[in-house]
């Protein structure tokens, strides 16, 4: 605690000093430095402008050259200030779990803005559209695209597009028309504005903002489908926003009289051009990136740089061609992730991922701080109660109506319908943010007489959605869900059963292909495997694409690391004595334990529950929480579980295969009894071996006398990759009475030799070693 308070004090002092320095710096710059800074040795007469001539009195040992460094110094200083604000915000974790970070940053922005305004009597620093759109937004969006869960995104693409396009158009139209109607009705008093301006305002305030959405959903864990819907919508609606904004801007310039059907049709066509053109630019750049990374084996140290530069270029190129820049950079990130992750060195991949998170986090922080600062500027504030309140009302209400309407239509076509709670969360989570502010700040004051009113309204809307809706989102979600499912005390049997059901349901989901195998996807997959991967991936990278292979690959590389980390990170006591019951430490706080504490007195019972709690494998659904997160990279904690389960499954399948071949009953049966029978080998499609499959005939101790053909069948069973499994030691049953310190202990040796399809046969031997040694 002392440490924290120290940090807090340090932070505040740093703040004040920094800001003072900044303020004084600008004062110096603004007033041409008529007074020397305190603490400077000697003075530089030539710096005090206003024509003092070149009378130098002697050599200056140290000079204060503010103008020399003014611009970069201020930029660096502001980045530092933003970083420190984030630090301050993160000091108290309890606070951030109630109020989202973005809200706190805005508040800090207000404070800073107040200080600066107080010192300067004008707001010298605001979030200008140029800085925002060119320097702050691209990283955030690139980060979103690069870490996008592709499978999920594309399988829900239809719904996302519906929300993004139709939803945004609906929002824009209703808000614009609603406001216009109210203006006609006189609710807003006398302002110089017209229908087209209302529509323009509606279009820029209608768009859900990706920055704000991520920032809030970070704290609220919702299911992945819901998340991808809102997130995907916030990214893709830029296409619509850009078009609507430009179209209405042009209409306003033309004036109302010039608009006829031709212009409207041109507007509609421009939507398609902008959206698809932007995506195309992004995809082209993704191809470029993938190709580049394919060839950068010798300059691995600057590989990461390419990603960022080309990503940024894709953004700028689209902007140059007046296409949708956000769509461009999103698709660039989405399309290239797979290939660059495969092509680049491990360390480059880590670098890219980490740097991207750093940049995105930094940008986001700066954006929110500046959103706060920009508000403290009386010059832009125009208050019109009617306008502001009505805007708030309309965006809220029409968002709900729009989402429910569209979901009702969509649910007719979806296999898994969206529930009521999801719709509520989706409507409530439609946050507006900096993009709207950036767009409104770009308006031309001469064409839009009421620009300041719009700016004020936009700011208020942003604050309202980010702060109020952000704060209340989590309680709302929890409240809605708690109504449905109450956590009751579970008996052991119930717990086991629940977990069994979870695994069962996950398995059925996988079998029935919930994420779907359909014709188009298979076609795309085949196309991709044959052509794209050949073109865009390094040959060595192509081999490691298989998911199962990846697990082994990771095992091989990070085996020791994760084991060590495991031992260090776990809270369990490693005791080597034989008292196994009281082995594990109870974690400090645990909901289930507290509930059962009240009713169960026996320590054995308690421990049994606790043991189960600790060791039951988690179902996959629980694992997939942090699919996309601004501040966390993926964690590896579940790899061990996956490892264990996979090895066990493979071993038992091997055993059954072997026993089927040779009629040998394995030592310990954990499979169902049918496998004791001899499996008749149905040889399928013998004539259709892939011509690339080269297998050296093997005779090894245990499967020696099995014919080659049956060998092929076993291999083909595992798909494209050929598994030739050779247990070097007779496979022993699972470790039985082992001291728990050997958690992560692998079962005895299974050596898997994998042969790949490629013309050059390469053998990769992975040995999972017995960790007892």
């Amino acid at each position: 605690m002392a440490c924290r308070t120290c940090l807090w004090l340090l932070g505040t002092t740093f703040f004040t000093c920094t800001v003072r320095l900044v303020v004084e710096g600008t004062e110096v710059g603004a007033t041409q430095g008529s007074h020397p800074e305190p603490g400077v040795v000697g003075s530089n007469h030539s710096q005090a402008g206003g024509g003092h001539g070149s009378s130098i009195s002697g050599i200056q040992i140290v000079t204060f050259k503010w103008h020399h460094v003014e611009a970069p110094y201020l930029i660096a200083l502001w980045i530092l200030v933003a970083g420190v604000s984030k630090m301050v915000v993160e000091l108290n974790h309890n606070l951030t779990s109630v109020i989202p970070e973005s809200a706190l940053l805005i508040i800090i922005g207000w404070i800073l803005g107040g200080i600066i305004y107080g010192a300067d009597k004008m707001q010298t620093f605001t979030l200008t559209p140029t800085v925002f759109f060119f320097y702050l937004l691209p990283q955030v969006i690139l980060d979103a695209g690069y870490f996008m869960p592709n499978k999920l995104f594309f399988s829900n693409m239809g719904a996302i597009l519906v929300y993004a396009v139709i939803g945004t158009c609906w929002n824009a139209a209703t808000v614009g028309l609603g406001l216009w109607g109210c203006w006609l009705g006189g609710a807003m008093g006398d302002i110089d504005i017209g229908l087209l301006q209302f529509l323009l305002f509606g279009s820029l305030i209608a768009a859900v903002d990706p920055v704000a959405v991520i920032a809030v959903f970070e704290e609220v864990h919702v299911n992945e489908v819901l998340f991808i819907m809102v997130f995907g919508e916030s990214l893709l609606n830029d296409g619509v926003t850009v078009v609507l904004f430009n179209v209405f801007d042009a209409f306003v310039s033309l004036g109302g009289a010039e608009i006829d059907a031709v212009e409207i049709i041109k507007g509609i066509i421009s939507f398609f051009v902008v959206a698809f053109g932007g995506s195309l630019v992004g995809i082209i750049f993704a191809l470029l990136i993938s190709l580049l990374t394919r060839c950068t084996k010798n300059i691995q140290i600057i590989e990461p740089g390419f990603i960022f530069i080309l990503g940024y270029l894709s953004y700028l190129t689209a902007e140059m061609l007046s296409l949708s820049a956000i769509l461009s950079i999103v698709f660039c990130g989405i399309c290239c992730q797979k290939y660059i992750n495969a092509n680049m060195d491990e360390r480059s991949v880590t670098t890219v991922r980490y740097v991207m998170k750093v940049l995105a986090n930094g940008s986001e922080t700066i954006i929110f701080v500046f959103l706060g600062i920009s508000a403290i500027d009386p010059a832009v504030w125009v208050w019109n109660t009617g306008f502001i309140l009505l805007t708030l009302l309309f965006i809220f209400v029409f968002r709900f109506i729009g989402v429910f309407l569209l979901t009702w239509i969509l649910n007719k076509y979806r296999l898994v319908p969206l529930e009521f709670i999801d719709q509520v969360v989706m409507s409530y989570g439609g946050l507006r943010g900096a993009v709207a502010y950036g767009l409104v700040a770009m308006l031309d004051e001469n064409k839009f007489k009421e620009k300041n009113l719009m700016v004020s309204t936009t700011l208020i809307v942003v604050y309202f959605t980010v702060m109020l809706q952000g704060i209340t989102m989590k309680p709302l979600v929890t409240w809605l869900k708690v109504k449905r499912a109450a956590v009751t005390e579970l008996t052991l049997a119930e717990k086991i059963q629940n977990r069994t059901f979870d695994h069962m349901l996950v398995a059925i989901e996988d079998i029935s292909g919930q994420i779907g195998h359909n014709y188009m996807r298979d076609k795309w997959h085949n196309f991709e495997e044959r052509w794209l991967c050949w073109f865009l991936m390094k040959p060595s990278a192509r081999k490691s694409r298989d998911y199962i292979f990846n697990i082994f690959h990771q095992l091989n590389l990070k085996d020791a690391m994760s084991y060590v980390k495991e031992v260090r990170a776990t809270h369990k006591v490693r005791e080597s004595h034989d008292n196994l019951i009281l082995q594990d430490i109870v974690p400090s706080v645990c909901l289930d334990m507290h509930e059962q504490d009240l009713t169960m007195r026996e320590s054995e019972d308690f421990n049994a529950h606790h043991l189960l709690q600790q060791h039951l494998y988690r179902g996959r659904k629980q694992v997939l929480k942090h699919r996309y997160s601004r501040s966390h990279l993926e964690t590896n904690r579940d790899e061990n579980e996956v490892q264990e389960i996979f090895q066990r499954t493979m071993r038992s399948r091997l055993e059954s295969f072997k026993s089927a071949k040779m009629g040998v009953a394995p030592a310990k049966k954990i499979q169902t009894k049918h496998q004791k029978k001899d499996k008749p080998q149905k040889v399928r499609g013998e004539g259709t071996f892939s011509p690339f499959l080269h297998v050296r005939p093997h005779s090894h101790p245990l499967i020696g006398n099995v014919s080659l053909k049956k060998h092929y069948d076993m291999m083909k069973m595992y798909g494209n990759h050929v598994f030739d499994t050779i247990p070097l030691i007779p496979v022993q049953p699972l470790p039985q009475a082992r001291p728990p310190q050997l958690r992560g202990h692998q079962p005895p040796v299974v050596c898997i030799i994998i042969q790949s399809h490629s013309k050059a046969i390469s053998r990769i031997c992975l040995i999972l070693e017995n960790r007892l040694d």
Partner: protein
Amino acid sequence: MGSRASTLLREEEIEEIKKETGFSHSQITRLYSRFTSLDKGENGTLSREDFQRIPELAINPLGDRIINAFFPEGEDQVNFRGFMRTLAHFRPIEDNEKNKDPTASEPLNSRTNKLLFAFQLYDLDRDDKISRDELLQVLRMMVGVNISDEQLGSIADRTIQEADQNGDNSISFNEFIKVGNLQHIYVWAGDHYLILTYILLSVLQDCLCSSV
């Protein structure tokens, strides 16, 4: 495409499956396309290897058992009807079904049949009882290597104690049904209900448990 033609789904078949399992037309066609994509040998039936080829099942603790559940006793191939019949257990129960003809045989996805399916995952020798050994086997599959046999045994004993009512030291189907809190089984895989329950539990767990 000769062998393919005989395996294409005909309208009458779809109708029959619909009546038997209660899936809708679009669901049946989608599952059929999934079936054919799994069926690498293109002979209209799936074998165990076809299931084992799904990578996600290899990392599911109960994967192999569930694969076995698809295959009727003693057989190694399952055709589309059998596939659908098994999947039908996981279709959510609709309210309007409860009002249907009470004399008709119980639909496949009734609560009892769902529980029976789960029961059969445990009960391998089909003697309608889950013995301590069978429970132990399932537990071992679902639990890491960190638990010793003695500990697992005591957990199994305690579980049977809780559920067993007639004192025969094993869990019969009726006792199995009575184990409460089985709201999960009303869920079609992927339904948000299950996910929400999960999320609630995991959110609470995460907020408050330090080591899970």
